[in-house]
């Protein structure tokens, strides 16, 4: 059952990811990426990370992808403006990525992870636990990430604001 679910979700994930890469229309890419994110959220639930799954949907599908969508529409991008790379480069890209995949797998194939088993469901994935950790052990990174946000915020405003030349 779980394996079946895994397979279904994985197939969807991979297919939607491939669509993101191969489709000509940016809009399709965005949409299929959203699909992809939803399937990943499914994986999270499978892995007992319920809070994360929610957050994932909210942040990615809800915020990031909307941002993408806005941009695509704001810039009025469509398939006409999207010139594909030449054939040779596409082949080269595929080969390079393929080689990366092969070498990565070849390098870690010896790892025996099959013995790992999923522990019984616990509250680890629950908001209480995660929150607890986030505000104790991970307090410092949490605070520091605010600096990151602040910086990004200022930057985004700085860059995207329309100004007179």
């Amino acid at each position, binding site marked *: 059952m*779980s394996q079946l679910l895994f397979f279904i979700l994985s197939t969807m994930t991979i297919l939607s990811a491939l669509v993101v890469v191969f489709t000509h229309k940016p809009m399709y890419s965005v949409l299929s990426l959203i699909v992809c994110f939803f399937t990943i959220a499914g994986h*999270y639930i499978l892995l007992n*990370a319920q809070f994360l799954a929610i957050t994932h949907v909210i942040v990615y599908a809800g915020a990031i992808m909307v941002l993408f969508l806005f941009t695509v529409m704001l810039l009025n991008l469509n398939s006409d403006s*999207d*010139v*594909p790379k030449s054939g040779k480069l596409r082949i080269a890209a595929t080969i390079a990525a393929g080689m990366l995949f092969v070498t990565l797998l070849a390098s870690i194939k010896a790892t025996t992870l099959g013995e790992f088993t*999923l522990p019984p469901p616990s509250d680890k994935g629950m908001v209480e636990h*995660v929150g607890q950790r986030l505000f104790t052990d991970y307090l410092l990174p949490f605070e520091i990430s605010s600096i990151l*946000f602040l910086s990004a915020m200022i930057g985004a405003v700085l860059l995207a604001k329309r100004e007179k030349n």
Partner: protein
Amino acid sequence: MEQAAHLVPLNWYLFLSTFLFCIGVMGVLFRRNAIIILMCIELMLNSVNLLLVAFSAYSGNSDGQVFVFFIMVVAAAEVAVGLALLISIYRNIGSTDIDVLNKLKW
């Protein structure tokens, strides 16, 4: 449920993530449209997230999950800045094709 999940080896997640990661890499190499490339990078980040959660779940320690939060934070910040840059570029050259960006070379 738990019985069934039991049967999904961690290796599969590793494989899936790696594959997803490489699709993302391929997308970055494959496309010229900056927005799509950005999306492919998001894809790569998500593959990492997936793997982290899987590791976290299987090892029963929640550090991985917490890390994913931070990755999301960073991803969001990155996207915000990236899209802002993109807009700024688009205003100047009217294109999101990265091949047009070759003033600086050699």
